C-alpha cells in the first residue's frame, strides 16, 4: 500500500500541484491512464446530455443485429438498439454509480479513519471494530447482500458499493494519522490551543491527501468492477437502463451470431478499469514523496 514518509518530508500539501501533474504526465502509465479516462469521460458526458445520434434504449426491430458499419459504429443488438450509444450510456451509468459510491466511501471512511487515529480511545475501538466486521465479508458478497436489502435503483446500488469500500478508507487513513499525531508540528499546533477539529483539518488532513487520492482512483476501478459484476448477475440498475455488465450478460447467447454485442461492452469495461488502474499507479508514483524532485 501507499506508505508515508515521516518527518520533514511531510510538509503540508498544496503548492506542489504543478510538479505533481508534471510527474504524473511523465510516467507512461499515468499518461495512458489519464488519456483513457478522459476519452471515456467525454463519451459518458456526451451520452448523459443526449448528444449522441442514437437513443440507447430506442428499439428499431428492422435493423436488429447489424454488424458494425458507418451508421452504427459498434453494430446493433437483438432489439435494433445502437450498441455504441448503449456502451456510452453504460459507461455513464457505471461512472455515476462508482463516483457516488467512492465519494461517499471517501468522505465517511476518511473522517472515521482520522477520528480513530487522532482521538484513539473509545472512538478508535468502535471504528476499528466496525472496520474488522466489514472486512470479514468478501466485497462482492457484501455488495450483493446489501443490494438485496434495498429497492434497487442506481442510488441504492451506489450506497451498497460505498459501504463495502468505507473500511478500506478507514484503514489507509488511520495508520498515517496515528504516526502524524506524534509529529512535532501537529503536537505544537495542539499545544498552542487550536481546537482538535481545527488541527485535524488544517494539519492532519492535508498530509494524507496524496494517500487518499491514490486510494480514490484504485477504489474507482474496483467499484466499476463491482457494479459490472452486480449488473451481470441481474442485481444492478434494473433494465432497460443500459449497464456494461448486463449488456455482456445479454450478449452471452448472441456471441456466435453477433460477437460485437459482447466485444464492445467487454472492451470498454476493460479499458475503463485499465485506465483507472494505470492512473492510480501513476498518481502513486507522482505523489510519493520519495520521487519528488526526480527529473
Amino acid at each position: 500500500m501507499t506508505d508515508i514518509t515521516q518527518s520533514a518530508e511531510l510538509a503540508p500539501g498544496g503548492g506542489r500541484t504543478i510538479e505533481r501533474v508534471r510527474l504524473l504526465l511523465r510516467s507512461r502509465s499515468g499518461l495512458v491512464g489519464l488519456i483513457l479516462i478522459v476519452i471515456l469521460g467525454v463519451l459518458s458526458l456526451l451520452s448523459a446530455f443526449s448528444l449522441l445520434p442514437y437513443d440507447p434504449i430506442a428499439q428499431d426491430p428492422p435493423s436488429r443485429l447489424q454488424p458494425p458499419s458507418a451508421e452504427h459504429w459498434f453494430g446493433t443488438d437483438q432489439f435494433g438498439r445502437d450498441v455504441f450509444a448503449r456502451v456510452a450510456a453504460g459507461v455513464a451509468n457505471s461512472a455515476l454509480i462508482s463516483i457516488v459510491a467512492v465519494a461517499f466511501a471517501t468522505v465517511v471512511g476518511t473522517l472515521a479513519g482520522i477520528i480513530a487515529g487522532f482521538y484513539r480511545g473509545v472512538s478508535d475501538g468502535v471504528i476499528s471494530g466496525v472496520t474488522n466486521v466489514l472486512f470479514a465479508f468478501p466485497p462482492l458478497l457484501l455488495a450483493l447482500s446489501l443490494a438485496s436489502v434495498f429497492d434497487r435503483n442506481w442510488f441504492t446500488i451506489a450506497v451498497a458499493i460505498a459501504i463495502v469500500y468505507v473500511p478500506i478508507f478507514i484503514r489507509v487513513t488511520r495508520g498515517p494519522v496515528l504516526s502524524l499525531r506524534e509529529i512535532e508540528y501537529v503536537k505544537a499546533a495542539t499545544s498552542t490551543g487550536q481546537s482538535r477539529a481545527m488541527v485535524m483539518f488544517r494539519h492532519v488532513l492535508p498530509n494524507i491527501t496524496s494517500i487518499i487520492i491514490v486510494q480514490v482512483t484504485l477504489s474507482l476501478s474496483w467499484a466499476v468492477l463491482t457494479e459490472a459484476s452486480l449488473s451481470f448477475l441481474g442485481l444492478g440498475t434494473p433494465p432497460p437502463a443500459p449497464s456494461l455488465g448486463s449488456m455482456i450478460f445479454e450478449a452471452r447467447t448472441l456471441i456466435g451470431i453477433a460477437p460485437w454485442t459482447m466485444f464492445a461492452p467487454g472492451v470498454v469495461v476493460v479499458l475503463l478499469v485499465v485506465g483507472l488502474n494505470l492512473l492510480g499507479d501513476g498518481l502513486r508514483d507522482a505523489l510519493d514523496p520519495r520521487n519528488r524532485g526526480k527529473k
Partner: protein
Amino acid sequence: MLRRVLAALATLLGVAVFVFIMLRAIPGNQITAGLGTEAAALTPAQKQALEAYYGLDQPLIVQFFSWLGNIFTGNLGFSARAQQSVLELTAQSLPVTLELAVFSIVLALVMGIPLGMLSASKPDSPRDAFGQLVGLAGLSIPAFLLATTLLAWLAASLGFNPNGKGFAYFFEDPWLNLQQMLLPSIVLGFGIAAPIMRTTRTAVLEIRSNDFIRTARAKGVPARRLQVEHVLGNALVPIVTMTGLQFGYLLGGAVVVEQIFSLPGIGRQVLLGIQQKEYALVQSTVLVIALAFVIVNLLTDVLYRMIDPRVRAA
C-alpha cells in the same frame, strides 16, 4: 496469539450483529416472506399468533440471542424451496467452493510468483513490462467477461463444455469433476495471479536491496541458492499474507464464476437465496462465509509466524 483469537471472536460477534440488523432492515418478515401477498389477508389475531410462533413479538435483543443460540446449535434455518435445512445445503456447497478455491489459488501461485520474480529480475526491462502487463490484465479483466468468452469460445471451437452437463461431485465422478473445475479455476486463478505477481515483485525488489543479500553475494553464495533461499524465502512472508487474503475472498467472492459455470458452490447458494427471496438462507450462508473468512485469516496469521525468519528466530 490468544489476543488474535479473542479479536477474531469479537469480530464474529460483530458480524452476527451486522447480519441480524441486515435481516431486520429487509422490508417484511418471515410471515410476509412465507405467505407473500396473502399475508395482507391475515386477521389481526392470526397475525399475532404467527408473530408469536416466529418469536417476532419478543424484544429485538431477545430475538437476537435466540437466533444466535440457534446458530450455535447448528440450526441455521430451513430453505422452503429446497426442502432442506441450511446446514445440509451448506454441507453440500461449501466443499465445492473450497475445492474451487484451492485449485484457483494453486494456479494463481504457479502463474503469479514466477511472473513476479521475472519482473523483479530486471526492473524497467521488456520482461518487467511483460510481467506488469499480464498483472494489469489480471486486475482489469472482469472475471465474468473472461469466463463468458472462454466458455463460449471453447464450446464453439473445440466442443469442450464439461460445465454444460450436470455438476459432478468429486467422489461421484472425479474425472468429470476435474474437467468442470478447470475453466473456473483458470478464470479465478488469473485474476488472483495479478495481486500475487505484484506482491512478489515488490517484495523481491525490496529484499534484494538489503545488506544481508549483498553480504551473502560477497560470501559467494551461488546465484540460484541466493534467489531461492535468501530472496524468495523472505519474500514469502508478504506473499503468504496476500494468498491468505485472496483465499478468504474466494470463499464467497467466487459467486459470479460459480454462477456462470453452474457450480453449486456457496456463493451461488447466496445468489439463489437472494433471487428466490429466501432471506434466512442468505443471512445464514453469509454468516458461514464470514466465519470461514475469519478462520482463514487466523490461519494465515499462524502460517505467517511459522515462515517469517525473524519471528521464527525470536
